[in-house]
């Protein structure tokens, strides 16, 4: 065994661990699923590294299968996520705890403080074919306000 292989294995292990961490920690269903996919990616890296090490195509073939399975899984998972979103209107994975014991404190913070977004004013583009509105930059007290000409 060469250290070359070990380096690749380490990378695969790190990817796997990080994927596990993401799956366990993040509450967004999408991100959790992405982390699961990352775990698969780590495993495939391991397979490919071993395939190179053993100088045959076994690892690569298996990786292809893994890829196939990952694609199927992603399709089904997304279908499920859409359904779940439609039911609870949230992507929070913690919202689905119906099979658990009743909790004294709620998992989903219903009274979570929504930090108010700063009101953003985006510049509006005039639709094509219309005269652009011209409003004075500085509102003077004497000058009458020019009404916009809408066509």
């Amino acid at each position, binding site marked *: 065994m060469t250290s070359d292989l070990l380096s690749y294995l380490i990378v695969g292990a790190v990817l796997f661990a990080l994927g596990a961490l993401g799956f*366990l920690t993040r509450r967004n269903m999408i991100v959790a699923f992405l982390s699961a996919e990352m775990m698969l990616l780590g495993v495939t890296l391991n397979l490919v590294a071993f395939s190179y090490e053993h100088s045959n195509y076994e690892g690569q073939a298996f990786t292809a299968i893994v890829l196939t399975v990952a694609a199927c899984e992603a399709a089904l998972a997304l279908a499920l996520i859409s359904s779940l979103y439609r039911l609870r209107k949230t992507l929070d994975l913690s919202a*689905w705890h*119906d099979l658990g014991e009743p909790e004294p404190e709620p998992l989903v913070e219903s009274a979570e403080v929504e930090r108010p977004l700063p009101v953003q004013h985006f510049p509006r583009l005039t639709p094509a074919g219309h005269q652009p509105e011209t409003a004075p930059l500085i509102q003077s007290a004497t000058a009458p306000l020019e009404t916009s000409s809408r066509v």
Partner: protein
Amino acid sequence: MSDTAQTVILWLIPGCPLAAAVLVGLFGRTIFRASSHRVVVLAVAVSCVLALLQLGHVAGIAAHHAKAEGESTASATRVNAPESVRDADGFEWVSIGDMHVEVALRVDALSAVMLAMVTFVSLLVAIYASGYMHGDPGYPRFFAEMALFVFSMCMLVMARNFVVLFVFWEAVGLCSYLLVGFWFERPSAAAAAVKAFVMNRIGDAAFLVAIYLIWRTFGSLDFQDVFRGRDAFLVPPAHFNLRVLTICLCLFTGACGKSAQFPLHLWLPDAMEGPTPVSALIHAATMVTAGVYLVARCTPLFVLAPDAQAIVASIGAITALMAALIALTQNDLKRVLAYSTISQLGYMFMALGSAAAGETFALAAVTAAIFHMFTHAFFKALLFLSAGNVMHSMGNVIDMRQFSGLRKVLPWTHWSFLCGSLALAGFPLLSGFWSKDEIFGLLLNATHHGEYPRLFQIVFAAAFLTAILTAFYTFRAYFLTFFGPLRVPAEALAHGAHGHPADDGHGHPTPSVAATGSLVFDEHAPPPVIHEGPRAMTWPLAVLATFALLIGAIVGPTGLFAGWVELMPSTLQLQEIGLQWGLALASSLAAVGGIAIAYWMYAQPSDRPAKAATAAGPFYTLSLNKFYLDELATVLVTFPVSAIAFMSLLFDQGVIDRLVDEVGIVPPAVGRFLRPVQNGLIQSYALVMVFGLAIFLTTVLQVWMVRM
């Protein structure tokens, strides 16, 4: 008479009332209803006839002996006539090791006399009760319980050993509880029933100790084994005296509980809460005499412990005098009669105790006691039934302050009550006179012979004083009730002619009784609604009155009664005590004197009673409040027991219950602790899985490394 026939007949005596009790108890409400009394009266009548047959048998043998004796010149030593005893075998009940208890019957002279008296009075009271309890919703229950009582009393009297006697001793206590608490919805009645039963139990505890000691001392519980005299003992002579003294005292304590002697007498006045027939039967004639019967039966033991006999006499004297003093001031007619019963029972025990004069006087003492019991049964039952008539006609009012002058409207009752009162007071030549006189003779005898002359002098003085008081308070009651202007309480008119025993009848004088102003009527025009009860309530009174007047003279001085009782199997010798004329004269004077004073004070309404009461001052208060003995018992006994019960309650609830609850808290606590693990979140479960995986890998690697 063949053995089988004899057995059957003897078993029929308790068997008929038992059958009646079962029948009426099971089917009274459905089938018999208002005819329940027929079954019971029939059964008791059969028992009575058969019991009289037994008495006849004993009387025949006694007559035979008397004739034989008359032809010889030897003094009467005709004891222990075995042919007077009739046996009926039953079945073996307990057989453990050496102890064999057989349920079997034996009727000897003493039993025969008691049986005859018990069944006869029961019959009359049952007939009376069919009229008194008419219309009561618990009519069948009453007769069932009464039949049960008669059965228990018969079995008690016919028992052959101490265990069977004790079982039926308890049974009569139970029947007393049931019957005193007959109107159990009344809290006072229920409480009185419980009080009676509990105080009985105190005596019964001592009785049980006595039975145990008898078992240890004699090795057997059968009467004929125990009463064989000194050679029956199994203990060495050194322990002998103390042992027999203890046994006798324990037996006597049991008798005190049942026969309401000081200090276990407190239940009897309260037991007047029961219906009047119950008071007449149980608390006058039969149950309370069971104690006297026990002591009389155990006379062969008592003669071996003269100290015990002295104590018996002393307690009897204390009780008699105290009860008489209390009865002087009571306002409730039934209470007066109850205290009178206690007092007369004291007389019986005084008689039994006077055998301390010597072994040879034991049979005479027993004779006197049983004779007094015999006569007392009749005239006390008569008095109670008359009081029942009064109560019935007065609409369940029995407070003497609320009625008077009833002789004009209740003639039958009046004459019955008068006969009973005269007998109780010991008016010369009536039954009470003869029996009391025998007792006085015995007591006087004990002051000459025996070891306790001084004691018996005091006892005799007390007995004599009590006789005077007895006459006085009896006639006080009589005059208050039947003399003076005609007054009736409002309830008498409200209830109409058929005063059904209602639930709120007065049983005892309480200050909260609404003093419905008694209605005074003109003497010459009594209201038509006050009249006697039905025939069932008057004819038994007539029979009893006849007996009260005559029976004493018939069987007393003629020696018939003595002849019957002396056939009691025992190893005792007999020495008779003749009639002493001086004593008879003195007691007659006492009786007449008491009657005269009562007449002077109470025959006409006057202020003499009030003046006497104020003159007596604190003594009047003491007597009226029954010497505060009830309150004393409450403080000395009830409070500590309640305190202990309360502490037990606290312990049970605070410690034991709490311990159990604490144990019960553990599973939910553990559950609560572990529940957050299952929160239904897959990420949580996945977390645990990853941890498990890490640990698993570590373990596998370790194993692998070790193997390498």
